[in-house]
């Protein structure tokens, strides 16, 4: 683990019991993500991609091993501290956007900032900047259900970056979009990575999407089968 390492998973295991059967997803998984990386994780269904993403996002805890983030161990954090850690460090982008339908675009983007100490003026400024970055300044007051899928995903990206997290986790971010829109979203993620230095981990089934990442890891049956495929 170097100073440039943002995330490190050491001998991580994860399993659960289903009925009388013990199912193991990961058994001694090692993984390292450098700061400024744009990593795509691919693999067949059931390979453990989403579980891995959930563990990276602190929404699921490993049953063994150690998880280090930016020099701090996070797998032992309590639920409350883990929530605070997520709010401070992680931005999430989901396949189905997961926006709050009763809030307009600006209010959706503002949500993570409610967990900070920013006052309303500072929040407003941050929201405007995030929406401008994703090209939706003119749609700030629009309800999200009045927007196209691509626009909704851009709102979701704005929400993910508004609090300036160190890591963006994307779960099939283009899975619900047509090719052209998907490319727009992926270019945006690439921009965030290149221009703003955001570390991004993206789970995808789509090889075309993975090409936007700096490197791709293939996961199968809980193990990385081929590493650093794309440089």
């Amino acid at each position, binding site marked *: 683990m170097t100073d440039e390492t943002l995330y490190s998973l050491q001998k991580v295991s994860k399993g659960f019991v289903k009925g009388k059967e013990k199912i193991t997803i990961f058994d001694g998984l090692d993984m390292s993500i450098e700061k400024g990386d744009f990593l795509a994780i691919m693999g067949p269904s059931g390979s453990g991609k989403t579980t891995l993403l959930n563990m990276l996002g602190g929404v699921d805890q490993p049953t063994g091993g150690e998880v280090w983030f930016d020099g701090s161990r996070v797998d032992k954090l309590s639920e409350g501290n883990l929530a605070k850690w997520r709010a401070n460090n*992680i931005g999430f982008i989901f396949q189905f956007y997961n926006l*709050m339908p009763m809030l307009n675009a600006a209010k959706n983007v503002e949500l993570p900032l409610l967990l900070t100490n920013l006052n309303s003026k500072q929040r407003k400024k941050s929201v405007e900047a995030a929406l401008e970055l994703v090209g939706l300044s003119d749609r700030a007051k629009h309800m999200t259900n009045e927007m196209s899928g691509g626009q909704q995903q851009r709102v979701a990206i704005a929400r993910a970056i508004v609090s300036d997290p160190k890591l963006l986790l994307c779960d099939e971010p283009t899975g619900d979009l047509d090719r052209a829109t998907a490319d727009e979203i992926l270019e945006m993620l690439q921009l965030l990575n290149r221009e703003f230095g955001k570390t991004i981990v993206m789970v995808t089934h789509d090889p075309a999407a993975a090409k936007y990442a700096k490197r791709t890891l293939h996961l199968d049956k809980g193990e990385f089968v081929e590493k650093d495929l794309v440089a």
Partner: protein
Amino acid sequence: MNGVLTLLKWVFRIITAPVWVPFWILWKLGEVTGLNAVIEAIAMSTGFYVVYKNLTRKPLRLSLTMLAIFVAFTIYGTLTAFQNAFDAGVELSADDRLVSVNKINFTQPLPISYVNRVRPMEGVASVTHLNWFGGYYQDPQNVIVTFAVDEGSFFDVYGEDLVMSEEAKAAWLGNRQGLIVGESIARLNGWEVGQRIPLNSNIFSQQDGSSDWDFDIVGIYTGSDPQIDTNSIYFHYKYFNETQSFGGNFIGFMAIKTEDPDLNEAVIKQVDDLFANSPFETETVPEKVFNKGFIEQIGNIRLILSSVVLAAFFIILVIVGNSMVLAVRERTSEIGVLKTLGFTSPRIFRMVLGESFLLSIMSGSLGMLAAMGMIGVVNNAPIQLPTLIMTPDLAIEAFTYMALLGFITGIIPAVNALRLNIITALSRN
């Protein structure tokens, strides 16, 4: 079909315009002045905005749920005001006032001579006597609570409760046919001072065979407390006694004011002992006890009213509880997203509970406002009823019930949200 729906929407908007137009004007003013943005920012900071938006996201469901709570609190507010008014008859009874009636039954008379035998007793401050007249005005259905009283001592005993000017009292004492009327009954019948009115009795008749007596209204009294009933009227016993065809020199009951409530027991004993083993034995009780017994003769009003209120609350508990569980269950994945973003479980718990509190308090407050309206209508209705009041105690009690309702209906979905696992929640997307 769409045309009919549009028409219905507009009819609904026009009917409910008095309710929403003021809010609409306030909203527009807020937009122009920029106040709305400030309020919105504060609401967002506190999380209230999200709670409010969640609550109002399904207007039809919200309207129906609010209607259920609104109706329940309107019923609660109105019926409890009724109950309080009945209770006030007992609670406002003076502690130092006793009522002495015939031991057989309070409808049986007592000899008027008893009054002078009670007056000099130790501990008795003053004593007066009253006789039920069985009066009605113009129509036998329009029964008026009418008493023939000893005008000279009446205010000595009841002067602290019934307030009237000294001029009116003097006018009453100076006019044998003088009648003093309570402000409620005067308003109900359109009576004014100086008016001469006939009153009939459904019990007594005059010596000439008629059952109607003429009176001059000389004063209108009010209650020292707003809940003191002012539906009664009083006239001179002498006028009654001299003109009635039977039952002369008998009275209905004695009202005794003691020098100190601590002396009540002693006075009661003296009075009842004095008339023991006579043809007209007395039963003397504190006025509170007498009034309570009298009201209980109508039935257990408290039980009846409480049962109606309880039934209403039980129904809304089921309706609102179900509605809240459903509303939160529908938002499972959204709760999962909020938790993913870093909203802690206790914060989500507070937000869900806050939603049910807001629903309950908004609808309940509107219900209590409607109850105030109902009380106003009842107080001004042309029927003889005790004066209903929305007391601060009743309002506080209502808010307590609103909070309780909010808590009970919100606690299960709030705990579910608190315990909701993020992975499970997101998988329901």
